[in-house]
């Protein structure tokens, strides 16, 4: 601004005041000389109440305008339009020289890419373009067509440019034309590349006007467009088809169409049925998951130990999580699982139980429940639960979630899982968060633009409107999802795209590199990706198609059930897990005065199997916020309460606290380092949490639902293993425990377990006694 009035002379109506209030113009910090302007203005404003009031008003109105304007409907380019641009960019890289302008700059409406704009408009594009091209082709190319049964509905553009890639492409405008047999079509699809023989570019030098704008003809001929144009158009069209994200079956159509010029609906159908297996099941996934799994090593349950000689025990704080899904898969396929697949501690910890959150400064709480063992009533079953402090929800950064649903049509069950899980996710969002939903399908429909979670009703309706809309397109959908994430990017917050897939991936191999670039770039930008495979057993990764890039900064999870899907989604809402305690150790000391023998209901770990006397020490383990761990011990009490049996363990017995205690539990930990220098391990003293557990005599019928459920889960494992330790356990007992232990079961895990119990029971009861379960 030229010679602006000195800030000292400003009135509330000075336009400089507006600039100052908006921090723009001379008060834009990136402008040279800003500091002086700013200082002078601040001084003047500080002295004047009316100026300050006016600044407040200006900013308020500006904020309102900004808010309203940014709420205005958002439109994006259609996928076709975008792809056209990208195809053009790719084409330029293939030897077509770059120019400073495109097409006719004098008359933007007649540029050849206008032709493409029209072509990419839905519905009318293809047929118009094809019809136009057809007439040109027929008129100008006497050599065409050479194939028998020329189809008037198909035009072949042949582009000869300085690029080495000559292209021919067909557009089928009239699918009712008689065609070669499907066999022919498929055969050629396999070995005919998109690239046709180079031919003379008969269209070179023709006015692109003849090509252009069939939709909005103005009748004006533009002499001599850039000579590359016609070739480019043909190349472009081909490129779009080539690099476009059409599902593989459709690309097969395109491929075959380029040589055998037409596809009748019948031929198309036949091709499709050849391209895909008859069943709509997930070919890729099934092929992978039904491949023989490496046989699990034979596992042994930890046997009973004498409390007198071995009074101390510990249990794993990081049990694995593969056993339960493996069992479920076997049962769903109508087979009993291999006993080796059954790991008691993994089954137990597949489920979550209600434990009180730690109080005070302790990062972990412990809860112990004792009752008579359901399968050996003169034994006790002790359930120990550890619960880590939950992650602070108030401190959670804002979440900007975008969910891309790429389910193939026909999997309505999976769609309803996705919906249920998303509804629960919405409940977990708070008002500051936002959620966007879009469908990965041919239309790439955005169901819900990024919407504040305060509008819960809108979000729920959006979830209800989710549909599977045809084959997912992968890359294109993901790009849109990232674009949506961009709209509400929360710096330093949780910016996440959740990509729900169902294993029916279809994308061309060439998209991998693009996907990889995309994901890497977005991860660097702070938008993390989670791929959630619905209905995918076990790990998603081995099932991933080759074009899917390695995880990198993203997480790949699979969910075989709705409940698992929900857990995954909830987890994605959490920021990076925070460690609440380090160097966590668990020490269970049995009182030999009360305990004759004890046994941890767990598989022996591989290390300990070689040295059965020494239980692995689980030192140095970290515990993340919110995590819980459950362990079950079976105890054979001493027959009398006198101390006659105390032998070599007497000193330990003394340290086990009151002699009436069954056991003493000690959880040692160190607070996590906060990254400060003085936070070295030495400066963070070890602390511990101790509790004595008194013996009680009560029937398992009187125990809590959680206890019964835990007993059911382990009992189920014992039955499936036909364990020597199963006592008088029956399937009926397991089922009763599972039924009584349902509890609130908010996520549906326990109900599913009950089904599996019934299934296993049916299979085992129906099997010939002595017959080994199949693997």
């Amino acid at each position: 601004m030229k010679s602006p009035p000195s800030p000292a002379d400003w009135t509330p109506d000075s336009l400089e005041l507006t600039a100052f209030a908006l921090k723009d113009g001379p008060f834009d910090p990136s402008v040279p000389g800003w500091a002086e302007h700013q200082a002078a203005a601040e001084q003047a404003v500080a002295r004047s109440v009316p100026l300050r009031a006016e600044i407040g008003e200006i900013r308020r109105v500006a904020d309102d305008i900004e808010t309203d304007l940014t709420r205005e409907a958002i439109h994006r380019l259609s996928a076709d339009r975008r792809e056209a641009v990208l195809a053009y960019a790719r084409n330029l890289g293939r030897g077509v020289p770059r120019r400073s302008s495109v097409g006719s700059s004098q008359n933007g409406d007649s540029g050849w890419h206008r032709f493409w704009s029209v072509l990419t408009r839905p519905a009318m594009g293809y047929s118009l373009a094809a019809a136009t091209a057809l007439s040109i082709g027929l008129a100008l190319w006497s050599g065409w067509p050479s194939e028998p049964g020329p189809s008037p509905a198909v035009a072949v553009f042949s582009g000869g440019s300085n690029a080495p890639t000559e292209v021919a492409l067909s557009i089928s405008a009239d699918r009712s034309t008689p065609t070669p047999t499907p066999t022919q079509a498929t055969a050629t699809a396999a070995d005919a590349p998109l690239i046709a023989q180079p031919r003379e570019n008969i269209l070179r030098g023709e006015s692109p006007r003849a090509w252009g704008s069939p939709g909005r003809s103005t009748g004006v001929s533009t002499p001599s467009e850039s000579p590359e144009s016609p070739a480019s158009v043909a190349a472009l069209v081909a490129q779009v088809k080539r690099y476009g994200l059409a599902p593989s079956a459709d690309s097969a159509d395109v491929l075959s169409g380029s040589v055998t010029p037409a596809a009748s609906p019948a031929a198309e159908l036949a091709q499709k049925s050849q391209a895909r297996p008859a069943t709509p099941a997930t070919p890729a996934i099934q092929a992978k998951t039904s491949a023989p799994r490496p046989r699990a090593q034979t596992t042994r349950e930890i046997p009973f130990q004498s409390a007198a000689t071995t009074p101390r025990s510990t249990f794993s704080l990081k049990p694995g999580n593969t056993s339960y899904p493996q069992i479920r898969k076997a049962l769903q396929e109508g087979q009993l699982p291999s006993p080796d697949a059954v790991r008691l501690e993994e089954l137990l910890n597949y489920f979550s139980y209600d434990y009180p959150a730690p109080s005070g400064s302790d990062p972990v709480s412990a809860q112990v429940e004792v009752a008579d063992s359901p399968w050996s009533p003169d034994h006790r079953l002790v359930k120990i639960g550890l619960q880590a402090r939950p992650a602070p929800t108030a401190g959670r950064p804002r979440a900007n979630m975008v969910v891309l649903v790429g389910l193939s049509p026909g999997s309505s069950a999976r769609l309803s899982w996705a919906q249920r899980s998303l509804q629960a996710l919405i409940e977990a969002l708070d008002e500051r968060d936002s959620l966007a939903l879009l469908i990965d399908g041919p239309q790439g429909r955005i169901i819900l633009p990024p919407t504040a979670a305060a509008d819960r009703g809108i979000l729920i309706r959006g979830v209800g409107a989710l549909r599977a809309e045809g084959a997912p397109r992968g890359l294109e959908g993901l790009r849109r999802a990232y674009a949506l994430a961009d709209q509400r990017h929360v710096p330093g917050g949780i910016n996440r795209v959740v990509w729900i897939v169902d294993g029916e991936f279809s994308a061309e191999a060439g998209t991998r590199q693009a996907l990889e670039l995309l994901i890497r770039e977005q991860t660097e930008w702070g938008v993390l990706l989670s791929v959630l495979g619905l209905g995918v057993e076990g790990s998603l990764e081995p099932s991933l198609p080759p074009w899917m890039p390695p995880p990198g900064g993203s997480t790949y999870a699979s969910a075989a059930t709705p409940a698992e899907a929900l857990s995954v989604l909830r987890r994605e809402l959490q920021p990076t897990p925070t460690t609440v305690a380090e160097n966590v150790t668990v020490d269970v000391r049995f009182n030999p005065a009360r305990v004759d023998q004890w046994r941890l209901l767990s598989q022996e770990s591989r290390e300990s199997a070689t040295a059965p006397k020494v239980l692995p020490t689980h030192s140095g383990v970290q515990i993340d916020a919110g995590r819980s761990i459950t362990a079950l011990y079976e105890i054979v009490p001493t027959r009398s309460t006198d101390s006659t049996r105390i032998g070599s363990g007497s000193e330990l017995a003394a340290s086990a606290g009151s002699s009436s205690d069954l056991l003493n539990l000690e959880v040692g930990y160190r607070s996590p380092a906060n990254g400060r220098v003085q936070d070295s391990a030495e400066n963070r003293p070890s602390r511990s949490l101790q509790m004595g557990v008194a013996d009680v005599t009560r029937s398992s019928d009187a125990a809590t639902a959680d206890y019964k459920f835990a007993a059911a889960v382990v009992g189920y494992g014992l039955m499936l293993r036909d364990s020597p330790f199963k006592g008088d356990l029956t399937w009926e007992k397991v089922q009763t425990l599972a039924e009584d232990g349902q509890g609130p079961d908010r996520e549906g895990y326990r109900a599913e377990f009950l089904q599996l119990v019934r299934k296993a029971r049916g299979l085992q009861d129906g099997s010939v006694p002595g017959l080994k379960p199949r693997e």
Partner: protein
Amino acid sequence: MNPSSTSNQTLEQVEWVRVSMERHEAELIRYARSLVGDLPSAEDLVQDAFFKLCKQEPESLQGRLVPWLFTVVRNQAMDHHRRDSRRPRAAEAEASEVAGSSPTPSASAQARDDIRNLMSLLTTLPPNQREVVRLKFQNQLSYREISQLTRLSETNVGFLLHTALKTLRQRFEGLDTGLGVSKARSNLHPSSPQ
């Protein structure tokens, strides 16, 4: 098919174009629509702008990609107007977006109506003010960028914005008879100044 260096270069170029589209297409369409009225034409303009972008070197536009894109869209919109001068000039897009509503005086408390009011008030501004308001508040361009794009001086941009804000404030207050609009509006966006 291609030497890998070429294909890498191409890939970078394509990625650059793609990222630019991702980041800017929506704001460009909004802007284009405010200039030409209907959505399909706006999409045409924006798509054309990206076609043009394909021919640019990323380095050459470093730091000025957004103003460049807006400029291309704007120039094309001007062409569009010249070409379509036979047709009645498209009244502002906003007019159709707000369902042809004239300001309703009783709308002070309702959030939705509030927005409508503001949007319809926007349509009452002269086109040059309207455009500057959009560029500044919807597209977050600076005075300087707006000045480059519209070929107005920075002072002129400042003047247009200043006048537009004043007018909008006065009209908005004029709309509101009963309730204090400023109060209603600040309730609307309690956290907007973050």
